[in-house]
Structure formats: C-alpha cells, structure tokens
C-alpha cells in the first residue's frame, strides 16, 4: 500500500492531550484517523427481563478503537449461575453501537458447558446499544436465553462493530 500523505492538525502528548487528526492517503474525511484508544471494560452476563446471579472466575473485556470501529475481546468463565429471565445478554460494551447502521454480528469463538448444546453460537449488537445478544446459528433465529445458563460456563470471542 502506498502511503501518499500524512498530515496532522495537532500533536497529542501526555501533558497536553490535544485532539489530533491524521490524514492517511488523502485529505478528505474518509482519510481521517481522528481517534485511537485502547482500554478495558467489564462484560457482564445479564438477562433481557431480569439478570441472573453469576459468580465469575474470569471476567475480562479489552477494546481497541480505531476511528469509528471498535475491536473487542471478551472472556468469561463462571463457577455459579442461577436465575434470571429472558434472553441471555452480555452488557457493558465500551461504546454504544452506531444507531443508524444495523449490521453487526459474528461468531462466538468458544463456548461450552451450557445447559444444552447451543453450537454454533453467534453474537449480535442491536443499533444504538451497548450490549450483545447471543443467538444460535440454526436457521431458526433462536436466541440464547438465561435458562440455557449453567454453573461452569466458558465464553470467549472477539469481534468488532461501528460506533
């Protein structure tokens, strides 16, 4: 890839966090890199109607935001899971999803020890939301519900969405 142009409208530093835009490959808004950030968030298993009681042995969320795209990685393992009602969701995303772009979803890389076999499992974020719903990729549009939960769940996946 040829890098044809890099310009900046200000240089950020630790002492002075000046908003900075860098243009790569052109000078239009489509070439502007106006945000980059890395950090963590706390993903939490919740229910669309009421939340389950969950004891976590691992509960990690990491993100990298590049422009308007948020890349994330989520990892759960639990030692207890009870109660809750409605769809099983993962709340606590670091940024709200784009409210006008209703296309965001992907596969759940690893999941096991649910009450029943739910594979293959997929994730989806509604427009303007900061939580994930879990679906079964079984041609029936079935969602994962809190009653599918079990004590020793393990869920790990990565994905990205537009904010």
């Amino acid at each position: 890839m040829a890098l044809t142009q890099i310009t900046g409208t200000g240089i950020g530093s630790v002492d002075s966090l000046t908003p900075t835009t860098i243009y790569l490959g052109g000078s239009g808004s489509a070439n502007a890199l106006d945000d980059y950030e890395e950090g963590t968030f706390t993903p939490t298993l919740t229910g669309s109607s009421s939340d389950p009681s969950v004891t976590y042995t691992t509960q990690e969320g990491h993100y990298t935001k590049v422009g308007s795209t948020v890349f994330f990685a989520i990892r759960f393992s639990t030692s207890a899971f009870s109660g809750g009602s409605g769809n099983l969701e993962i709340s606590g995303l670091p940024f709200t999803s784009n409210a006008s772009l209703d296309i965001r979803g992907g596969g759940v890389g690893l999941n096991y020890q649910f009450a029943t076999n739910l594979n293959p499992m997929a994730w989806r974020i509604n427009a303007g939301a900061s939580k994930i719903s879990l679906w079964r990729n079984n041609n029936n549009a079935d969602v994962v519900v809190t009653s599918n939960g079990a004590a020793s769940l393990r869920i790990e996946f990565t994905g990205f969405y537009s904010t």
Partner: protein
Amino acid sequence: MALTKEFEYDCEVRGQYKAVQVRKATIVKDDGKETSRTYHRHVLHPRTKTDDTWGDTDISGEDASIQAVCNAVWTADIKSAYETFVDSQETP
C-alpha cells in the same frame, strides 16, 4: 520516589438518544510525573428495562461529574424516544 494513583472521569454524549460513554482513567504518577495512564469504559443509556418495565437508569454509583451530564441531557423526551427506539428493534 513516591508513586501515587489517581482517577479521572470524562465522557462523551453520543447520538440522538444521548448515550453517555464514560471513561475512567487510572493515572500512576512518580513524584508527581505521570508514568502511566490506562482506560476503563462503560456506557449509560437514559432508560433501563427490568422485568419488561422501563425505569430510569441507576447512576448513583457514577462520579458526580458524570451524574451531572446524565441529568442534563436525559430529558423526558429523550427517555421516551429511547424506549420507543429500543422496543422497535428486532427481538425474537
């Protein structure tokens, strides 16, 4: 050498439904000079649904500066519009 840890909060208000994106910075300083800064984020929406009933989002645990922003931007019209928007989305 004196190491200290400080927290800073800031936020962005996003979209027509005024989602408040909260960023907590953890700042480590050595003799007053910053040596590291890490971020942890979460998002607050104007209303929360529990047991299929909408209610105000609990922001009592948020920093006072964040509570002030939420209270300023989450008008009754925004709350109502957000409920309608969420309820209109696909749910199986």
